[in-house]
């Protein structure tokens, strides 16, 4: 059995870490893969560190990615990179805010989605699947800005 793909999304409470992991998990799910997503609630609205793991593949057991085995680490806040770097496996890819031009984002709170755009270039899912998951997970008035942020990240 092939190993699952491990993605860790990290940041601070209020940045949309859990929203981003929901969207990613749903994209993988709609592609017919086994998916597990793990997160911790409770303290996340109080501005502390938050992270969420998404794992997908033929078969996934643990909902958490083993430490040091993440294929992709998406960090929404630069100061959270050192805290989470140990999650990343050898040869894993770090995706961070400096990879996008935040000035281009019409909605500054959509850094999470813009970084999903960057991540999307590495994953075998269609733009249509991403758009559909984005729309299902966000209120309608935010669709346009977030689809735009996603494109900015994807085309970076």
């Amino acid at each position, binding site marked *: *059995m092939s190993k699952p793909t491990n993605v860790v999304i990290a940041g*601070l*409470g209020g940045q949309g870490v859990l929203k981003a992991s*929901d969207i990613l*998990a*749903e994209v993988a*799910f*709609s*592609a*017919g*893969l*086994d*998916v*597990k*997503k*793990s*997160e*911790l*609630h*409770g*303290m996340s*609205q*109080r*501005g*502390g*560190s938050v992270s969420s793991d998404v794992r997908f593949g033929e078969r*996934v*057991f*643990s*909902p*958490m990615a*083993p*430490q040091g085995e993440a294929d992709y680490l998406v960090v929404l806040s630069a*100061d*959270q990179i*050192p*805290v*989470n*770097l*140990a999650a990343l496996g050898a040869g894993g890819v770090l995706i961070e805010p400096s990879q996008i031009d935040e000035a281009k984002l019409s909605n500054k709170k959509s850094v999470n989605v813009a970084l999903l755009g960057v991540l999307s270039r590495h994953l075998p899912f269609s733009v249509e699947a991403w758009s559909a998951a984005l729309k299902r997970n966000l209120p309608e008035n935010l669709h346009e800005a977030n689809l735009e942020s996603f494109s900015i990240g994807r085309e970076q």
Partner: protein
Amino acid sequence: MDSLKQQHTFALVSGDEAVAMAAIDCGVTLGTGYPGTPSTEILESFAALGGRAQWAPNEKVALEVAIGVAFAGARALVTMKHVGLNVAADALFTVAYTRLDGALVVVSADDPGMASSQNEQDNRRYALAAGVPMLEPADSQEAYDFTLRAIEISERWQLPVLLRMTTRVCHSKTIMRRGTVKIAAPHTPHFEHDFASRVMIPAYAKPAHLRLRKRLAEIAAWNDEAGPNQLIQGSSSLGIITSGVAFQYVREAAPEVSVLKLGLTYPLPVERMREFAASVDLCAVIEEGDPYLVEAARTAGILVEGKPESFRFGELNTARVRRILDGDETPEPKPAPGKPPALCPGCPHRSVYQALKKLDCIVPGDIGCYSLGVLPPFEMMDSLVCMGAAIGVGLGLRHSLPAAEAKRVVSVLGDSTFVHSGITGLVEMVYNPPETGHVVLILDNGTTAMTGMQEHPGTGRTLDHAKTGKVSFEELARALGIRNVFVIDPVKEAAEFENLIQSCLQKPELSVVIARRDCLLATRAIREYERCNEQAD
């Protein structure tokens, strides 16, 4: 898996949502509980799916209400976090002796590793201590299936059933589908007197205890034969007995070994465990938390290896299970310290702690967002034990400290916590007042903030935010005979607030100060609920 079929038949949901779906699918009449991470979303999802869900003032009341539902022949679901079961335990131990006409499923959401809790107690011990059958799901599909099985077991043996979940089962999303377990339709609610089965005076409780043990023996035999346990045949050199989410880590860490995964973990399928252990060269138990399964196996004379004591602390995960299996005793890597949570900028609790710090108060505290007052920059909370303890602990400090120090003691607790377990503390204060008097400070931010903005009896709105009866803290305190009762906005009237606390501390009298200002994160939603409710009037 075909992607189109997957999307139509399957769903990616959390364990909490899966329990709610099962409750809907089997016609649960009432879901009740008290919010607590990681259990809160069960009742919220149940309500969102159209179920009748209610927040109770605390877990004990919730369980009592649910017992009534089950005595009426209907199906009841009660949800709480692990420590909530301590509060509800009084009801649990004795309802186990009674005979239910309907079903009663008690969800205990444990928090090994304490992601958001004050302790990491292992509530599997409650099943054993109270004599209540217990199921332990390992993912969302099992959370769904086992909720239905719990209803079935509860009705078949007329007993309450504990559904013991953990943080990673509650809050992980995994793929599941509904309709996997078919159970009978619920009974039509109906009441018949049955004194000997439900009135636990000693004359009736003595035979009831015998009856309970007999039923548990029957369930144990059934569990051996047909319980929801799973055998994975692998190598015969190593066999692992496991339960709950630990199963997932075992499968990932050691895909080649034989596994006996236990679903109904009280009463245990001891003969199946014995058979399994005998079928492999070495049998190990991998479980999160306390050595519950390993002790039970050894008591039954089954030769098993357990985990080293250091793995009793915190959650398990794949890496830790690999360590246990490899006998790796090198120190575990410590996770890099993240940014700790903090009171939000502009949070009304901030100005409260500023004042208390200035007045050099001694602060027995309580459980909620305001517990963060213990961290810098305030460092203004001196104790946190359990819900409502602020008042009792404060009184004890007042009774024993020298007067100069006693006069600095202020009990601090939140609005929802006050309703949960603070009211009896106020009664104690009136009944046994300290010589120096006392000051109780209720931080009323209009919501149960820490668990994610749930309503409570002090907000005057139900779980789904509709208008209902509202408990007034100030009127309650006055009705108890407390003369110094004040309501103040700690932000808008910051200077007055500080003066007020100071003047209360100087009086050898009893005072209740209600610092009332809505939680910043909830303000907008509260305004919207109020607007909708006014329109509905």
